[in-house]
């Protein structure tokens, strides 16, 4: 998706803690990275200062495959958050489990929300919502 510089993007954007900044930077570069423990190999998400499994601080931002499947899926029918209007509804919100094992919340796009099913294979798509921020989203892929 291309940068939409012609209009102001008003929906919520990540404000980015120091712990999270490399994630958003890698999204902006269209090469998503997640923390991987250099000691035990565990993938960690959401970002944390220490590995959840072994408490090592040697967490390396490592590129992920961008492939995964839908772990849980819901359809939003009510504009609950700022700047979401009836025109945005309904839309999908899913938990996607990447092949690396980490789970991320995102939108599955590229198909109607009622066609998104648990277990469905998906792959990453980068949505450059502003010049500064890219949101990793997911679209259906052939198995």
């Amino acid at each position, binding site marked *: 998706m291309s940068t939409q510089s012609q209009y102001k993007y008003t929906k919520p954007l990540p404000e980015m803690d120091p712990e999270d900044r490399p994630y958003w930077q890698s999204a902006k570069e269209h090469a998503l990275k997640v923390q991987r423990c250099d000691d035990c190999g565990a993938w960690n998400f959401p970002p944390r200062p220490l590995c959840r499994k072994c408490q090592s601080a040697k967490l390396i931002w490592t590129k992920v495959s961008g492939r995964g499947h839908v772990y849980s899926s819901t359809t939003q029918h009510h504009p609950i958050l700022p700047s979401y209007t009836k025109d945005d509804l309904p839309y999908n919100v899913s*938990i996607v489990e990447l092949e690396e094992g980490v789970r991320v919340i995102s939108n599955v796009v590229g198909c109607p929300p009622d066609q998104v099913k648990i277990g469905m294979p998906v792959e990453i798509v980068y949505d450059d919502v502003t010049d500064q921020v890219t949101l990793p989203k997911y679209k259906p892929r052939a198995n």
Partner: protein
Amino acid sequence: MGNLRGKYAIVGVGETKVGKLPGIGTLTLHVEACKKAIDDAGLKVSEIDGLLTNQPLHDPFRTYSVVVAHSMGIKPDYSLDLGLGGATPVAMAQHAAMAIDAGLATAVVCVHARNQASLHLLPKQGMGVTRAYHGGVRDGCEDFEDPYGVMSGPGHHSFAAARHMHEFGTTSKQLGAVAVATRKHANMNPSATMYSKKLTLEDHQKSRMIIEPLRLPDCSLMSDGGAAFVVTSAERARNLKKKPVYIMGMGNHQPFASVMDAETLTTLGGAVSSKMAYKMAGLGPKDMDFAQIYDCFTITTLITLEDYGFCKKGEGGAFVEGGRIEIGGELPVNTHGGLLSHAHLEGMTHVTEAVKQLRGGDVEPERQVKDAEVGVVSGHGGYASTHASLVLSNRPS
């Protein structure tokens, strides 16, 4: 902690009006609830030396427990603002008992009040900044959720509901059975927000989706109101005004910090927390005459009933059907109308209702669980990530 069994009791409860109370301040609701609970116990305000609060997240304060205490002339030796989300009121009973056992206080008031109906920060159009939207109080994962248009509580529980349906074949109608049973209880409770509003399973099935698979009646109310209870020693309790309700078992467990790093969304903290409480009490699910189960969403009730051992994992959908969880059924659940239909005070009225049921005669006769002697209360909050359990009884042993 096994030695705390039956040593402490809830001796007073107080509830303000609930619903939409514009013009009544949150501090006033706290103080009114505390005063009612202290009066109910037959204690003097000067006899209270401990106070626990759950600070109002719609209007955060520093040292809120101290503000509330001094608003009514209490100079506490023990005060704490406890932050476990919806598990807080149940956890307060545990913390109060521990503080008294440690000799830090002798009589502790536990209070929770909110102006969620009249002051809640509803979405403002054009407000694109996530942390400001949360009133400066962070959940911790909003950067990874708000940009995708998902709001913590409803979003997390709809993920859990979708998983429960996927793993076990649970249906929207079964969630509806929870909403209907809870509403029937509210229809017997004149203080409930939904007292005069009936709900049938057909109504539930026709109602609009909020976050599919959750419909409007699957979601709890937004409420103004307050409630409180007083904890003191069992010995002292026996000389007070009301029949003591003894704290027999307590548990507390937080299995994850985000739905993104939860191992599962269909078994929550209650599975561990209830076992701790049952073990301390020397009792089990079969001994419970009722259950007051935190019900921010219908799916929460269903999963918690499984986690508490009232049925097997995955069988919650069938368990809640057929009137089993209604008054007169096998296990009356949320006899006041719960967060779904009484008021959303983050479970504080689940505790006060349990106490009233165990005293006997403190609720409308048709709402009284016959010969109730033992009941369990659950608290649940955060990212569906916090849980506290309490086993209460009107018999000390």
